[in-house]
């Protein structure tokens, strides 16, 4: 029988209701997750999945976030205040000329392939950075002239020149210690000496780690921790609400935070990070070689309005590549204040006005959101901006990061003390400034006061030269079940230390 018009009207209303329900539920977690259930299991929701598990050949902050400090350990590490403290090295001494470091290593550490950790593994790991690593971060090891095992528990590292930066870099991924017989399948089966063992990687969904019961140090509380990855910010929040995960490792929908702050079941943690959200310029392009273009773009952006609009006002305006937790931080937001008239005249003078710039964005919530504000604000200053979204990490890393095929992009640089790494001619920013390199060299080789002084100068130089535009500093926003303990207030290292978590 043919349905009547009134029947169709009822059907329409039912469809509309269904659509509304779909809209409400579509954001809920779609991936089939392991339900934590037992007290000894924990599931953490994160936003960017690694492209590979091998940070020796693949860039991206997601790999060390998951593996460093958990599967891999370093000789030294940073504590919560940023101070360098022992890890696999019990102690160390520095020669008077500041070129020779002697480390005393722990004697009871074992890799998860049952091999003992010795000074030979440390020598192998340090040398391997220079010979087998392919990422740009390997440059931090260039200063090492020789690494030598004095005994199974004593390592001597000689530098070509004094370097303030080198020991700090040893707390990051380039300081990771590998077993000589455990590097054959780094991309899929990492072997380390850390408190957790890599268990499995369900691509597109999760990484599972289990407690390393043979760990030489204090054993973690949780027997199993699952890192679950969500592309959608609301799905991430919904996963916590529905019990699929226990922790939102990084809130990507800050506007929706109120649903947790008003609920006694959850704790909300708000601190700071190293994540400078950078509007990067391809400084190798003729248009961006003109400082007036770069300064014009910086002055066309109302950063306060941008932060309020795209990240609910959470985060901090910084004005350069240094977060407030670094000793050389200065508030440089006043260097290029929002001034639309001046921005227009600078862009006119440089010939950029009316030109179309490609803003190639990774598919990350903050980038998608801030990109729309940046486009709108730059267009008011006379530029044309074409937004192009690239799937993160694979497409963005290949197109923007590796091939520098972009005009502008937006990405958070979460590596600690990354000013020199980000702004150099070999990095995707293609920023070549001898003056800046001079400050960085002086900071690296000088004493502590000279380091602070020169890095302040470097940060100011970057800001004045508008090598990029620092939209804001990401806040450390976490939400978790009230019972979860040990979550960090600040996220100032490139790893997420899972060993401190407990219930």
């Amino acid at each position, binding site marked *: 029988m*043919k349905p009547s*018009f009134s029947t*169709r009207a009822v059907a*329409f209303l039912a*469809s*509309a209701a269904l*659509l*509304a329900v779909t*809209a*409400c539920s*579509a*954001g809920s977690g779609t991936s089939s997750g392991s339900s934590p259930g037992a007290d000894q299991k924990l599931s953490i929701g994160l936003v960017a999945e690694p492209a590979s598990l091998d940070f020796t050949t693949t860039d991206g902050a997601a790999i060390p976030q998951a593996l460093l400090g958990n599967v891999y350990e370093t000789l030294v590490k940073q504590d919560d205040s940023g101070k360098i403290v022992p890890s696999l090295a019990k102690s160390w001494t520095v020669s008077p000329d500041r070129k020779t470091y002697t480390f005393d290593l722990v004697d009871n550490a074992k890799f998860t392939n049952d091999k003992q950790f010795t000074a030979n593994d440390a020598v192998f790991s340090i040398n391997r950075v220079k010979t087998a690593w392919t990422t740009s971060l390997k440059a931090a090891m260039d200063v090492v002239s020789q690494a030598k095992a004095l005994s199974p528990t004593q390592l001597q590292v000689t530098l070509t020149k004094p370097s303030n930066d080198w020991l700090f870099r040893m707390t990051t991924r380039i300081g990771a210690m590998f077993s000589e017989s455990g590097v054959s399948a780094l991309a899929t089966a990492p072997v380390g000496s850390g408190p957790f063992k890599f268990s499995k990687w369900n691509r597109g969904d999760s990484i599972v780690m289990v407690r390393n019961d043979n760990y030489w140090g204090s054993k973690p509380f949780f027997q199993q921790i699952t890192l679950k990855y969500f*592309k*959608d*910010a*609301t799905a991430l929040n919904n996963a916590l609400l529905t019990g699929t995960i226990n922790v939102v490792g990084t809130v990507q*929908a800050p*506007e*929706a935070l*109120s*649903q947790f702050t008003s609920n006694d079941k959850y704790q909300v943690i708000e601190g700071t990070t190293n994540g400078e959200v950078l509007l990067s310029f391809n400084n190798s392009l003729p248009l961006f070689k003109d400082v007036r273009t770069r300064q014009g773009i910086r002055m066309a952006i*109302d950063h306060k*309005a*941008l932060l*309020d*609009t*795209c990240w609910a006002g959470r985060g901090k305006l910084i004005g350069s590549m240094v977060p407030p937790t670094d000793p050389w931080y200065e508030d440089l937001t006043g260097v290029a204040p929002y001034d639309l008239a001046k921005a227009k005249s600078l862009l006119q003078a440089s010939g950029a006005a009316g030109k179309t710039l490609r803003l190639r964005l990774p*598919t990350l919530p903050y980038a*998608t959101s801030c*990109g*729309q*504000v940046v*486009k*709108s*604000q730059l267009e008011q200053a006379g530029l044309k901006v074409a*937004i*192009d*979204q*690239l*799937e993160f990490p694979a*497409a963005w890393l290949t197109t923007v990061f590796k091939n520098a095929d972009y005009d502008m992009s937006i990405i958070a640089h979460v590596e600690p003390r990354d000013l020199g790494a980000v702004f150099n001619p070999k990095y995707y920013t293609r920023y070549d400034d001898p003056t800046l390199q001079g400050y960085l060299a002086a900071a690296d080789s000088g004493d502590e006061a000279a380091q602070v002084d020169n890095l302040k100068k470097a940060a100011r130089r970057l800001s004045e030269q508008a090598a990029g535009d620092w939209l804001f500093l990401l806040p450390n926003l976490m939400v978790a079940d009230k019972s979860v303990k040990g979550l960090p207030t600040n996220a100032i290292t490139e790893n997420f230390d899972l060993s401190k978590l407990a219930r």
Partner: protein
Amino acid sequence: MKRLNPSLIAGGVIVAVIVLMALVSFVWTPYDATLVSPASRLLEPSWSHWFGTDKFGRDILSQIMVGSRTTLFVGVVAVGVAAVIGVPLGILAAMVRRWPSEVIMRANDLLLAFPALLLAIMFGAVFGASTLTAMIAIGIASVPSFARVIRSGALQVMRTEYVLAARAAGRQPFPIALRHVLPNVTSLITVQASVSFAIAVLAEAALSFLGYGTPPPTPSWGRMLQESQEFLFSAPRLAIFPGIAIAIAVLGFNLLGDGLRDRFDPKLEDRR
């Protein structure tokens, strides 16, 4: 004279309003639909912003008006792709001998078994998310329904006396298809186009919602829904207005399709 039925009138009116809204948006919208205005973010509906504003301070009514262009554009191109491929395939399957026809229809069944959204997501992942990718994927996914419907209509036409007479007179298959079969399946094409249009509108909204459709900041009803997720509890209107727009558009094209079918299908004549 045939009496107009309520479905046809209601569907026609709704579709006309959407088309008019899209045309008007080329020359006028209350505000610039993509202009970010932090001072006006998340405003409640008022006389100055009838549907309120979103988190970027953009006027929702203006976005819905401009979004209707995306909806219609996707629908037209997707249905065009489906018709251009599906209609000749359907006619060919009706006119050729048994086994080539079987090959065409089984290949058709194979494509039909593939979920349209999955196909579109696959296209988006391979070629990059864009309106063009979405349109082509939705169009290809709609080919089987065109081919199947047109084949059944063409088979009936092939059995008519004037076609038999043309074949007896030695007319070649191509002129028969062009002069006799195609004009007699036009009503079927129109009805199928209308129904497929509704499906395309819904598919584009779903793809944009999932991030595989129209990229920001081009207004799209599906992406408006996606961006409203954060505010479902604090500002549900951000989801309600584009949701209603999608529902009405789908209803309009479905009613239009039903109405056209009722009008063109002689078998339904005695039921009216």
